[in-house]
């Protein structure tokens, strides 16, 4: 659902801070409701929505200047309701990867989260991020490489 995807992007973008993520999600959907008459259908709805998400997150970045959350390892927050039986090791792995994503420079972090959680095409991402296709490609490549570098030695079930 859109609200979960927007919330997830905000959650991982702001270092797992569920308070900021809730604020961002509320802000995005209130803006959407108040400006829905500006959607003329000339862009895909999801592109329009995620352009909003990008702008709201970047605005909030300038306001919050938040530090990565260290103590807020609320691992249950990573689980969907009803999946409390989820392997603790998997929750640990999610925590480690989440910290690495949080530490990415903003432009790479946003590109990776948009691509991973919403699966926007490169064209849609270019519109949402306000940049060229080549820039989208290079941010994704560079972002993933930095992530891999930061996760060296991480053997959480993946490469």
């Amino acid at each position, binding site marked *: 659902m859109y609200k979960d995807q927007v919330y997830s992007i905000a959650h991982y973008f702001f270092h797992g801070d569920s308070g900021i993520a809730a604020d961002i999600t509320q802000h995005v959907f209130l803006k959407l409701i108040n400006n829905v008459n500006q959607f003329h259908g000339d862009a895909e709805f999801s592109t329009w929505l995620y352009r909003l998400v990008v702008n709201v997150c970047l605005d909030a970045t300038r306001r919050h200047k938040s530090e990565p959350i260290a103590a807020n390892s609320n691992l249950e927050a990573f689980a969907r309701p009803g999946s409390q039986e989820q392997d603790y090791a998997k929750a640990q792995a999610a925590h480690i990867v989440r910290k690495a994503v949080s530490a990415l420079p903003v432009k790479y972090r946003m590109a990776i989260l948009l691509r991973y959680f919403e699966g926007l095409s490169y064209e849609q991402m270019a519109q949402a991020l306000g940049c060229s296709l080549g820039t989208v490609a290079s941010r994704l490549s560079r972002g993933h490489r930095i992530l891999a570098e930061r996760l060296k030695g991480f*053997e959480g*079930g*993946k*490469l």
Partner: protein
Amino acid sequence: MLRIAVATSVLAVLAMAGGFTFEIGSPVAAQAPAAKTAAFAFRARGCSEPSKSQITAGAEGIVRGTRRSTVLNVAAMEKPGVYAVFQTWGDEGRWVIVLKGVCGPETAGAIVPIGPKGFIRESAKFFSRPATAAEVDASLKSLVEGGSK
């Protein structure tokens, strides 16, 4: 079929005898989504401490008459001792993949020919030591001459 049965039995005997050896399989044998697009999976059998083993792989090929070599990244899977090899060698020419392993005092090697439909299990060779250059060249020559299907 007989060759595969013999090869399988030899591997089993080596493993049961405690010898360090490689076994190859299709990517699904790795039981890991990450291996799905691999050229093949392999495991190091008979190694008492897989986490301390050193496994390397290289691709040796002949492309339009020219000998080529390239080092490959070996991807460790979640299960200890299980690995995957991904194709980063070219589509042109004929290639064999050379595996080398060190587990404590023991070593192992393998040569895995690659055909149009993927790795050629029945032509793979396994050793309790690294393959020699001559053995690699012989495998390549056999592949080029169509000795391997």
